[in-house]
């Protein structure tokens, strides 16, 4: 009953209602759903790229003294793997769900600034390409995703590698900041009548907190990168000790951004599984208010723990104690979340569909990542663990076992809503088990090998230190992990070939997105819904005394006012990218100043036309 298939007549009618097609419609789109799909598709390609980089790393480390990769290639690969997965995969995969789901879950027709939304996407895409074009110049970033000074100074990194990284991150930062403003305003202003803050779906809440983190954290890295740019291009010495600068300044700036960044990566996944678990437990989220406030608390504390990345710099006992204790404190709200998720399952009627499997996998894996996190909140113990594979294990349990499991749960959960097709359950479950096994085989031994003294970021290790066996096992695990995503790809392709068969509400959903057709029409809601409580759709069903609502009809959108398509966001995005690309030219040759002038002119032209274009 829950997975009714639409009949052919309905499917044809759906196509009949003016869905725009063609490349131009995608280039000029300002529809949050299409932008969400663009974010998702682009980020998934970058995720595959980052995954291939990881596999190359694992091949290299599969045996001691391996020469599969040269040292510089290895350093490029681990730098780009980290940078790609953080900025080009996990963040934009979350942005896919922000885009697609926030307006639907709060009962809005679009985001607050649809063209700014398109601009964010294009800047993200071009920033990602800018970073990766470095491969063609044989100058991919090679200083680590954390870019510690003073290795990044012109003296020790004379090539363009660091330039690509610092300018690429600036471009991506603009995309993130623009998107953060947009979603922040959308959530504050565009909620449907009756959708009070404390009635918002938990995914919207966690997304909201994420936007606040983005708004507060990204300016810091922006400043740090500008200082670095001045050091590299214009001869200043902010981070250069020989000129009176301080490399530790970089570490502070980087981690004041970098630690909140960790929560930027994980909070959306917290939100996703807080949606999935109640639906597949057929029971509301346990302790809603505690979930909201623990999220807020985590975000707040997230700005007060940055120096736990820097215990090895020798900050002295007072600073060490402060940052150790604040770091430990974060375990409390995180624990509350885990207990509340289990509390949600407790007493429920658990439906083990694919999204639920990934959500449970998230809880199980995130517990491990959280516990190892407590272990390096203790400075004396951390002084042994930092910069070893123990840390690599920890953050993969959080970033992969957490974020990626959560995002994958969201992908299976919302796929029918986004594409009108249900992914194959059998392949989905195969994906889950392969991923769970591959993940643990890859990353669990890293705890062991790290505590036994294997440092990170080394392109090889000598035989005789005992690292051989565990590294070989890890490499095998990585390929199982890669295989799991091959299964996902097969599932996607197979599903794509089938007709749209997903009903509006395949899972007996609790939130508003399940009240409208799959995929939604351009205007989302023919009539803006009125909300009477949390789990708005369950409320409606309860009032009407049914478990499923009748399939919503696709209607003509006549009379619904929607924003016009526009290509000026794309022009402006090209302008932004050109500005940073031309700064690179300027950094290496004064004649580049003309390119900077031309790029700024292009940027202003784009923004000017955008500003005076009728919004529709």
């Amino acid at each position, binding site marked *: 009953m829950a997975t009714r298939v639409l009949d052919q007549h309905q499917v044809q009618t759906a196509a009949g209602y003016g869905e725009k097609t063609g490349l131009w419609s995608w280039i000029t789109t300002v529809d949050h759903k299409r932008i969400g799909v663009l974010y998702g598709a682009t980020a998934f390609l970058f995720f595959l790229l980052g995954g291939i980089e990881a596999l190359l790393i694992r091949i290299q480390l599969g045996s001691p003294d391996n020469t599969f990769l040269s*040292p*510089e290639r290895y*350093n490029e690969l681990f730098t780009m793997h980290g940078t790609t997965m953080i900025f080009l995969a996990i963040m934009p995969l979350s942005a896919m769900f922000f885009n697609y789901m926030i307006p639907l879950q709060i009962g809005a027709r679009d985001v607050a600034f649809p063209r700014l939304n398109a601009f964010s996407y294009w800047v993200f895409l071009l920033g990602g390409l800018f970073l990766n074009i470095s491969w063609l110049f044989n100058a991919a970033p090679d200083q*680590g995703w954390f870019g*510690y000074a*003073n*290795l990044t100074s012109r003296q*020790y990194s004379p090539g363009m590698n660091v330039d690509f990284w610092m300018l690429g991150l600036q471009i991506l930062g603009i995309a993130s900041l623009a998107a953060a403003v947009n979603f922040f305003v959308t959530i504050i202003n565009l909620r449907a009548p009756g959708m009070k803050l404390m009635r918002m779906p938990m995914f919207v809440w966690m997304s909201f907190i994420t936007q606040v983190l983005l708004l507060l954290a990204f300016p810091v890295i922006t400043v740090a990168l500008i200082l670095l740019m001045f050091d590299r291009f214009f001869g200043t010495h902010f981070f250069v000790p020989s000129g009176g600068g*301080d*490399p*530790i300044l970089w570490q502070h700036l980087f981690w004041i951004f970098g630690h909140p960044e960790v929560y930027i990566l994980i909070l959306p996944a917290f939100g996703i599984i807080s949606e999935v678990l109640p639906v597949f437990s*057929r*029971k*509301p989220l*346990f*302790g*809603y208010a*505690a979930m909201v406030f623990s999220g807020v608390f985590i975000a707040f504390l997230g700005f007060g723990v940055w120096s736990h990345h820097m215990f*090895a710099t*020798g900050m002295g*006992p007072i600073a*060490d*104690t402060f940052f*150790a*204790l604040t770091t430990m404190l974060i*375990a*409390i709200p995180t*624990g*509350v979340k*885990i*207990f*509340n998720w*289990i*509390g949600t399952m407790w*007493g429920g*009627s*658990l439906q083990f569909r694919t999204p639920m499997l990934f959500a449970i996998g998230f809880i199980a894996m995130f*517990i*491990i990542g959280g*516990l190892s996190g*407590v*272990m390096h909140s*203790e*400075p*004396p*113990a951390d002084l*042994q663990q*930092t*910069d*070893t594979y123990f840390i690599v294990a920890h953050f993969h349990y959080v970033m992969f076992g957490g974020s990626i499991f959560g995002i994958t749960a969201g992908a299976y959960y919302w796929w029918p809503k986004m594409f009108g097709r249900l992914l194959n359950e059998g392949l989905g479950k195969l994906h889950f088990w392969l991923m769970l096994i591959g993940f643990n085989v890859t990353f669990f031994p890293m705890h*062991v090998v790290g*505590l*036994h*003294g294997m*440092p990170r*970021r080394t*392109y090889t290790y*000598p035989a005789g*230190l*005992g690292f051989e066996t565990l590294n070989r096992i890890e490499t095998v695990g990585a390929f199982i992990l890669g295989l799991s995503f091959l299964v996902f790809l097969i599932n996607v392709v197979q599903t794509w070939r089938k007709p749209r068969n997903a009903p509006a509400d395949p899972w007996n959903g609790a939130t508003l997105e399940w009240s409208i057709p799959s995929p939604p029409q351009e205007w989302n809601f023919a009539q803006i819904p009125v909300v009477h409580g949390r789990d708005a759709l369950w409320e409606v069903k309860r009032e009407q005394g049914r478990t499923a609502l009748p399939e919503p009809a696709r209607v003509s959108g006549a009379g619904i006012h929607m924003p016009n398509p526009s290509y000026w966001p794309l022009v402006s995005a090209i302008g932004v990218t050109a500005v940073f690309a031309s700064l690179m030219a300027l950094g290496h040759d004064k004649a580049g100043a003309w390119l900077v002038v031309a790029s700024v002119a292009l940027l202003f032209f784009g923004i000017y036309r955008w500003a005076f274009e009728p919004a529709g």
Partner: protein
Amino acid sequence: MLRTAAWRSRLVTALCLLTVGLVGCSPEHYPQTTLLPRGDFARIADDLLDTTVKWALLVFVLVEGVLIYAIFRFRGKPGDPEPHQTHGNTTVEIVWTVIPALILAAIAVPTVRAIFQTNATPAKDALTVEVVGHQWWWEFRYPEYNLTTANELHIPVGRTVSLRMGSADVLHSFWVPQFAAKRDVFANRETRLWFKAEVEGEYPAQCGEFCGIQHARMAYRIKAQKPEEFRAWVAHMQTLGPKASAQSPSAPSKPAATRASAQGVKTASAGGTVQHPGGAQGQAQGTQYATGNQLFMTKGCVGCHSLQAVNAPKGMVGPNLANVGARSYIAAGTLKNTDENLARWIRNPQAIKKGVLMPNLGVSETEAQAPVAFLRAHQ
């Protein structure tokens, strides 16, 4: 029935293999392990980790156990009625906020104690060693003995070693997993670390902070020696300087070679004039040595490497070679210190450690034998 038995025996085999695998994980198989502390600092870190791991295991088993129990206990069946719609339970939520807080308090107390212990001022009688990180090797200076060496840190067991550390270029991290832990080094500030070694032996260690293309090849050895052995090593090293008295080497036995090195050092510091060591038996050896000495001067080696352990100049780009002949490894843990490897290294360092600051000096295969003999004599 038979199938079940076969399956069960296979399961037992698998479990045995798993157990063997876990035994294989014991710290003895990992010379660079952090889990077998042999010094006071490392023990503080290890004890703290032990305490935390116990709590973590308890939490892990309980929470994952409850999760797995819930998965089986609340498995939904088709046609189940809607479960009871609970929204929360204030008492339960307070309990599971307070319990983690108490557990954290239980680990916070030993943590803070350990922070202050490890940040304490080292004992007054501590042996001070200055550590300087270089791309990609380590310099060790003993101000108390006016000695300098590289890539092998000799320390006495039972006496606290106080490290005062810095960097010549980028960030590195000095890491002594067996005795202490890590401390980053910087070009613009001094960082400190101390520890007391309790067990003698030779231990591998390596740089902890990513420091460029050859970060992976920035390893070093810690040689923890009995106090009398350490004193003997210091006494021997103090002969490797400009003030050492010259003796003529005879046979290529170890003490002879040592004397040769003393003479070689003197020659080098005297301004590059070559003296042929005397003695009939050592004639061939001496010729090689002299040619090596000459090449050392003419190929530019001397511009980056000092051969004197005493009064060694500061700010050299390459490692001090006063006792290079006696070291276990060359090129910062890259190669075992054999004559063959030393020759390979002298001829083509860029092929072995790409990006290393030592250029290919155009030493031919036949030429290489002389500097090998020359360096080997520097014990």
